[in-house]
């Protein structure tokens, strides 16, 4: 059950897409709903940051500040650059990380009990908000941030025009880094949904990806392949592309959450009952309570 082969991966892929298509209406409604909530929250977060700043400084100095920040962006380096990207990206993207994580909650309901509802996503969104946001921040910092920093650094070094070998090297680094780190953390959201803390889920994910490398990375790479195929169709064939992009968002993404959650539940399961009892007749008690 915990070993992987091409056939197993294909079977897992089929099962996840079957579950995703069976629950497609719930997923579509949930994704639309949760994106609206995430958008509203993002606006609230932005307002919570901007309104006090505007009240304290006024609109004019703040506009000048952002204009100068934009002009000096390419000269920012090291800690300053890191700080600004963190400051701007994380609070704004937080609600979307939670939205993505909440889809794993729906997946858990499907994989464990064969059913979910669109409103179920909001319960996960609310109950696991901080943990899922924390998990999203970890994913962002580990998987995306180094790529973003390296790209900015490469653009700075090449004077804003990155072509040829530097571009190829940066792109190759970005792909390998993202695939490896995101694969290693692919059990992060299922772990958080399973009740682990962010740190506990990170440890669990890394542990599982090390011990069951073929199963975890095999599953992760199979979804990357499916996404690549659907993305290619989206770009190359325009009429089919529209359908492909819808399939990618409303079927591919749910299938991935289902597939990864399923792998998590299989790998963290304990198939052998440790408590074996001697065989006996019906469960009838002779001695009454005290």
């Amino acid at each position, binding site marked *: 059950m915990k070993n992987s082969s091409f056939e197993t991966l294909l079977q897992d892929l089929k099962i996840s897409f079957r579950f995703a298509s069976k629950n497609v209406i719930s997923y579509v409604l949930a994704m639309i709903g949760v994106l609206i909530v995430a958008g509203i929250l993002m606006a609230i977060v932005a307002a919570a940051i901007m309104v006090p700043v505007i009240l304290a400084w006024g609109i004019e100095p703040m506009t000048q500040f952002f204009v100068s920040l934009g002009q000096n962006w390419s000269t920012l380096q090291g800690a300053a650059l890191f700080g600004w990207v963190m400051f701007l990206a994380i609070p704004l993207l937080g609600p979307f990380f939670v939205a993505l994580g909440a889809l794993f909650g729906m997946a858990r309901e499907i994989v464990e009990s064969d059913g979910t509802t669109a409103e179920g996503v909001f319960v996960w969104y609310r109950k696991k908000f901080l943990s899922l946001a924390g998990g999203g921040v970890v994913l962002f910092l580990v998987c995306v941030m180094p790529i973003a920093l390296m790209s900015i650094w490469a653009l700075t070094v090449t004077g804003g025009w990155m072509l040829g070998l530097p571009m190829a090297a940066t792109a190759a680094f970005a792909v390998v880094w993202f695939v490896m780190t995101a694969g290693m953390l692919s059990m992060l959201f299922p772990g958080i949904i399973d009740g682990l803390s962010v740190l506990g889920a990170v440890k669990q994910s890394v542990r599982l990806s090390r011990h069951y490398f073929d199963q975890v990375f095999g599953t992760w790479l199979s979804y990357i392949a499916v996404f690549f195929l659907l993305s290619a169709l989206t770009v190359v064939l325009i009429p089919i592309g529209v359908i492909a992009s819808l399939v990618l968002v409303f079927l591919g993404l749910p299938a991935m959450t289902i597939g990864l959650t399923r792998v998590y539940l299989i790998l963290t399961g*304990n198939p052998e009952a440790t408590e074996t009892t001697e065989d*006996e007749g019906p*469960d009838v008690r002779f001695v009454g309570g005290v």
Partner: protein
Amino acid sequence: MTEPVRVEPMKDLEVVTDPQVIRVLLEPVRSDIVFKYLVNGSMTVKQLADALGKNPGTILHHIEALKKAGLVVQERTQLTSTGIVQRYYRATAREFRLGISEMIQAEGGIARFAKDRFKSIVSSLSVYGMEIPEFQAEQATELLRNLIERENAVSSRIPVLDAESYNRLPPSVRGDVSRIMRRFALEEDSQYRNLREKWHDFLRSHRTGGIKNE
């Protein structure tokens, strides 16, 4: 390969003293999950959802809260032919008793619940012909509370010398053996005997009819 998760054997009796855990158990759906079903054997989220007429997602959230409180554990995992990964959950003990002192000392609803329950028990004894007047209700509650607390303390610390064989016993035999030993341990405890005698004297003095075994 990682080590398989070792599931602790089911305890025979657990006295819940943490007010937070008591609070978790006093929620009606959670108490049904534990007391009606999971103390008797392991069940999946789907089975619990069907039995309780609730959404599986709702049951999953309750199970998570119960797991966090240490009242429920994941026992085993089974992969079905349709691809569902069923997890079987069971209670960590066959019987749970709530710590009376901790409940009385807890804040808000729990203390009120415990006091009301005692009041109700004492007044309900009248159906057996035990007429306890209102002004002695407090005394009755105190006597009963001390007796139950001592019983819980003694019953929950009976040592099992051969845990491996104990865990292999069929549930019904294990239950019978445990009850016999609990009775024995209580009879051996002088403090319990003393408290029981006080309580029985109190009951005798308020008996207006009913049981007469002599």
